[in-house]
């Protein structure tokens, strides 16, 4: 007896809501934290990179426009970082469900990513509202947000499945993540402009799919130049590849997962 797709979607929704509620249950400001967290990060980074360090952004001369550039890069990063970190332990934290309830386990990383994407959506909405308030106009380029969010969700889900599955059999994945995240963060042009990467390291920046994802967000939100066809195709392929790899790992391990959690 396999649960039908409709049952799964329903359960996925329940799990996502449960995760969202759980994150804010008993907390003073509830879902408001979804907004507070990125805004605080934004203020912090803006202060450091405008008052202390000045990376010299060609597109962003004023503090305000620099903040917009930073925010457009920081938002997808926060979601990515949070999803993967939480996916790493999602099977172990929900060991009860996996071991004792017949349960489609892929929904656990799935709902983790979805709940984090919904935080991203809230933050994006706030950001778009601020942009509109400042300029008084909405650009059609915002439509690029759709493929950006889709690619991010699919890729994050794939990476999340990989990390979650691996962590069951190799509990020190955290150690790798602890090194991998700072590396990825600094390899992605979030706090520095893409052009400031020296020529001989451009390939590294280009090989990092997050570079293009951030570029896509900046194009959508701030009307910056689109990353170009080749990088976008590359980003899509990496996202899809991650998803396929994650799914394949899950298919191979789903039956024995409950024996190892």
């Amino acid at each position, binding site marked *: *007896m396999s649960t039908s797709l409709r049952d799964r979607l329903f*359960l996925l929704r329940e799990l996502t809501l449960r995760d969202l509620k759980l994150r804010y*249950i008993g907390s003073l400001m509830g879902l408001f934290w979804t907004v507070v967290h990125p805004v605080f990060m934004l203020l912090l980074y803006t202060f450091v990179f405008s008052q202390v360090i000045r990376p010299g952004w060609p597109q962003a001369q004023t503090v305000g426009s620099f903040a917009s550039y930073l925010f457009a890069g920081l938002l997808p990063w926060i979601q990515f970082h949070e999803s993967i970190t939480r996916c790493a332990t999602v099977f172990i934290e929900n060991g009860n469900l996996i071991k*004792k309830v*017949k349960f489609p386990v892929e929904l656990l990383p799935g709902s983790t990513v979805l709940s984090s994407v919904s935080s991203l959506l809230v933050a994006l909405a706030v950001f778009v509202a601020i942009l509109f308030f400042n300029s008084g106009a909405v650009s059609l380029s915002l439509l690029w947000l759709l493929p950006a969010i889709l690619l991010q969700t699919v890729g994050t889900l794939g990476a999340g499945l990989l990390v979650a599955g691996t962590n069951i059999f190799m509990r020190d994945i955290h150690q790798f993540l602890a090194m991998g995240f700072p590396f990825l963060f600094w390899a992605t042009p979030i706090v520095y402009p893409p052009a400031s990467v020296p020529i001989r390291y451009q390939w590294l920046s280009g090989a990092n799919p997050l570079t293009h994802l951030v570029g896509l967000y900046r194009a959508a939100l701030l009307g910056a130049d689109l990353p170009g066809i080749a990088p976008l195709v590359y980003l899509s392929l990496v996202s899809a590849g991650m998803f396929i790899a994650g799914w394949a790992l899950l298919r191979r391990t*789903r*039956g024995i997962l409950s024996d190892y959690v």
Partner: protein
Amino acid sequence: MNAIELDRVTKVYRVYQGSRGILKELLLRRQYHRPFWALKEFSARIGRATTFGVIGDNGAGKSTLLKLITGTTAPTSGTVRTSGRVASLLELGAGFHPEFTGRENIHFTAATLGVSRQEARAREPQIIEFAELSEFIDQPIKTYSSGMYLRLGFATATAFDPDVLVIDEALAVGDQNFQKKCVDRIHHFKDAGRNIVFCSHNMYQVRQLCDQAVWLHRGECRATGPAAEVVEQYSDFQRESRAGTRPAGTLHPFSSIESVALTDLAGQPRSQFLTGEGLKLTVRARFRAASQPNLGIAIIRNDGVVCYCANTVEDQFHLKEEKNGICSATLEFSQLPLLSGRYHFSIATTDERRLQAYEIMDSTCSFIVRHSGSDYGLVRLAHTWK
């Protein structure tokens, strides 16, 4: 059509030594685990409206079988087919989250069972009433007593018309009153023609409740058929093994100590010795693990003082293999130096690294030692005065 069909189902657990085993196995492509066969080539067809009992010793594979039917673990090979909704009462309230209210947990559990929102809403009042929780249903579950938790767990698990109900004998919910309500509900399912899979050590219960039964022994089906007959066969086996020298102390189904004999050097059974006489202890044990097993023997005085321990791995002695997988070893003390007292043996079988005990047999073959002369102490140590 059958409600449950198991076709040549095998479940092998991999027992790794240490956490690096899995990684080593992945990288080096060599086996770093010991397979543990929880269930071997098990087949069964359970028709509709059947109450099916599962009996057997500890470690026989009963829980594994129930987990496979529930679907919380997948078979290593073979297929498990169940029709309709399977409700497990093995772990009541297993999917509950302590931060959420009783009501929220009902709805979440319903979702995991594939129950639609409307149906869950419709059944909600009945669940709350059955669990006797009307006052507390909107409180977080973490504030519940264990009784309230289990009541809600039982009420929720049985609320959505399961076609197959998987029950463990350990089902003990709340006070006497509630216990009766649970039993009534289970009987109601039985009368309504639902399937029940019931696992128990209580032969009386199995005979009362079940139509069909299976007796599992070390992962294999020893007998199957009408519950009364299977219970008879299993009870015979239990009485036989209790009459033998077998104590209850099996930690691991990898080994069982079949017999222990204390004799003098000539092979005559004895339980009284003089200091300086010889004695022999012969142990016969069955090992199922593939690796070289270890047999350890300790002599212990009746006040708990461990006089001496010997083991075969340390002494590089290989157990002698008899037929049918039984190994034997004889430990001989040609001149027992122990002084007067009451002593006994403790026997343990372990893996070759002496890390994992398969079986420990405490206090067996007690014997008395007497000595002449005025020596005092535990043992007579060879000594000289100069």
